[in-house]
């Protein structure tokens, strides 16, 4: 239950460019200062060391951009949602943008899937290569996963849907949907690793970028909000 004098707000935001290389911890420090600059009446935690309470959805790996991040916080006064977006954007660094603000009706643990755009820049880019890469994801996709209990091989085929794989100029562009479930989270780097097994030199003379494009409920279809 949310106490009456607090107004929960969810903000969807994007982080691109230099922000890709800022860790989750540093992002939250950046957000905290931005909130103070925006002079939004954010609710502080009680206790010995009061601090603005902010909760983020799925943390991103360093190096990954995103068009679809979520952050929840509470305000102690009602502020029009459009004003929240405008005031945050006036206080955010250029490569961090608030997209919309609203009252949340879901929980972050409702998130089941996220889509990513992976762009592989390679001199070998061609429609044929794109098709061959797509075919790599038919059948088993064995990746090695490292967790607290150790490193083990895992078939991520049920957790990974290639939505499209095309050649765009000098790049292979893959749209992929990966599981974000807490217990079966698939990192986009596993997709790259799987491709590297068959094409170990694909990144030579090139590079790849990853951008999270959207987030969905477990049914894979309904956009998370």
């Amino acid at each position, binding site marked *: 239950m949310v106490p009456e004098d607090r107004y929960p707000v969810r903000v969807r935001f994007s982080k691109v460019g230099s922000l*890709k*290389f800022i*860790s989750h911890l540093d992002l939250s*420090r950046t957000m905290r*200062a*931005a909130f*103070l*600059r925006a002079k939004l009446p954010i609710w502080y935690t009680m206790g010995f060391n009061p601090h603005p309470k902010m909760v983020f959805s799925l943390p991103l790996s360093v*190096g990954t951009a995103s068009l679809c991040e979520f952050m929840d916080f509470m305000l102690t006064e009602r502020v029009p949602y459009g004003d929240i977006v405008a005031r945050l954007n006036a206080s955010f*660094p250029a490569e961090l943008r608030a997209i919309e603000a609203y009252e949340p009706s879901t929980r972050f643990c409702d998130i089941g899937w996220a889509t990513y755009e992976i762009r592989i820049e390679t001199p070998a880019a061609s429609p044929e290569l794109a098709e061959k890469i797509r075919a790599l994801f038919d059948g088993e996709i064995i990746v090695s996963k490292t967790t607290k209990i150790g490193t083990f091989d895992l078939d991520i085929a049920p957790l990974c849907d290639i939505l499209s794989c095309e050649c765009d100029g000098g790049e292979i562009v893959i749209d992929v949907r990966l599981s974000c479930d807490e217990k079966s989270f698939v990192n986009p780097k596993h997709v790259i690793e799987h491709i590297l097994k068959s094409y170990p030199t694909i990144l030579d003379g090139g590079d790849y970028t990853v951008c999270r494009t959207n987030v969905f409920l477990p049914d894979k279809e309904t956009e998370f909000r």
Partner: protein
Amino acid sequence: MKLPESILKKVEKPGRYVGGEWGQIVKDKSSVDVRFAFCFPDTYEIGMSNLGIRILYDIMNKMDYVWCERAYAPWVDMEEQMRSHGIPLWAVESGDPLSEFDIVGFSLQYEMCYTNMLNMLSLAKIPVLASERDEKQPLIVCGGPCTYNSEPMADFADIFLIGEGEDEVVELCSLYREYKHSDMTKEELLRRASHFEGFYVPSLYDVSYNADGTVKEYKPKYPDVPAKVRKRIVKDMDKAPYPENLVMPYIETVQDRVVLEVYRGCIRGCRFCQAGMVYRPVREKSVEKLNETAKTLIENTGYDEITLSSLSISDYTCIDKLTDEMLKWTDEKKVSLSLPSLRVNSFTKELMEKISTIRTGGITFAPEAGTQRLRDVINKNINQEELLRACRVAFEGGKTAVKLYFMQGLPTETDEDLDGIIALAREVIEEFYRTPDRVKRQPQVTISAACFVPKPFTPFQWEGQCPYDELIRRQKYVTVKNTDRKIKYNYHDAGVSRIEAVFARGDRRLGKALLEAHRRGMRLDAWEEYFSYEAWLDVFRSVGTDESFYANRTFKEDEVLPWDVIDIGVTKEFLLRERHNAYKGKTTPACSEKCSACGANKLGGERSWCPKIATP
């Protein structure tokens, strides 16, 4: 230019290199006349914390024809990537290589960063030697405390800006603009620069040496070049520009908060302390101005912590009024107030309650020496009773741990003084048990002992540093003597301190050694993991430099010192008087009690302790 992402993915803390922070200034490069790259010759985290750079970055970017950007020393992993991919060192705002800039400035804060400056120049593909640069390369300027004796860096910089930079950078940019739009040669530019107060152009002086290796003379090459360069100061601190916005780092930096400079200078005159002399005369800011600046900075930056900064903060004449005024709004805004270090005689219960970082953090005091005799020699005017009283306040406030700073190898130090260090720490432990309402836990005293390094422009500038082996012996001596488990003894690397002493009191012949060290790939000397004492000794051997000549030799009082070409306001006569007083164990009162005629008052200054000199 953008840094390739593939490289950013391979390095630690990529946030150091990407720029894009809130508060950075981006201009259209085609619309400015002067591009200035402000370099800090160490990592981003340290450089971003530097107050001087924050001030000067703001001043230069407020000039419509100047764009000042920032650059830092890359960490070794990034350096390796840069070298293997041929990426030249860039400035973070534009990503453009430093070689495309008009002026590249370095802030020299400590001697152990000298090799970093050379490494940064070479990473930027700029020739390190001034003599090998022409009109096509950027003008290389240096400022910061190390430039009070800039001689070891004389081969590498074109101009040293001596003293406070607020006005100097404006004049420099203006002069540069004129140079750029005229047919002035670089040589003429440097000549013109030497006419400005505080601009030291080392190439305009011939230095000759005596047979014994000491300096014979600094001779200006032309009659219009001043024989002595006087440092610049800002006379009225209330009128000095202070940034109202800061660049907000994404990653955590060393000083990640608003820093409010309360005053410049120091009234104390500890005889080992360079800052205490070179920043004279004392000039305070008014409470009104400070409070207003603090509010603005908190509003604009989003920081929730503010630290009051000055050499001895409790000596600010209005410290109570300032903290009271600030607490009126900081508490409500949940902004915490912190103070850097406190003198024991100002450490009170009231202050402890006011300052949140004192409430929550550790307590540190700096007696510097173990006995009253030695404290009198160095003019550290505190006594054991005052220290114990301050510790008791801390213990009553619930503290159990105290950190004590000492220096070892001070002039006239004997084993008795070393015993005094342990004895003083013991007394602090005893004071804990004598405090009735102490916390029921075991007390802990940490002794942190630095090695004394003689610094230019101090009363101890003539002293030879305690020999390396003797420093090691004294450290072992204290280690063995300390049998109390409640006392922890830490000490600094004597090797680092010795190399620091060489460069602190060096002359321009040391340029050879720095160049050789640079050629051998030495850098990051301020980092334990990259500093090698043996490597430095080998460098000195290979270029035929006797490091003891600079570090350990006691300079003669009538000898020409390499830094005599600089005038800091404080006179050599005063420093000599102070040296003689030291050997007599005679203390000198603080400026607030009595003027000791150091000479700095001739520079002028508002809200100062100094007797005024009638200006003509």
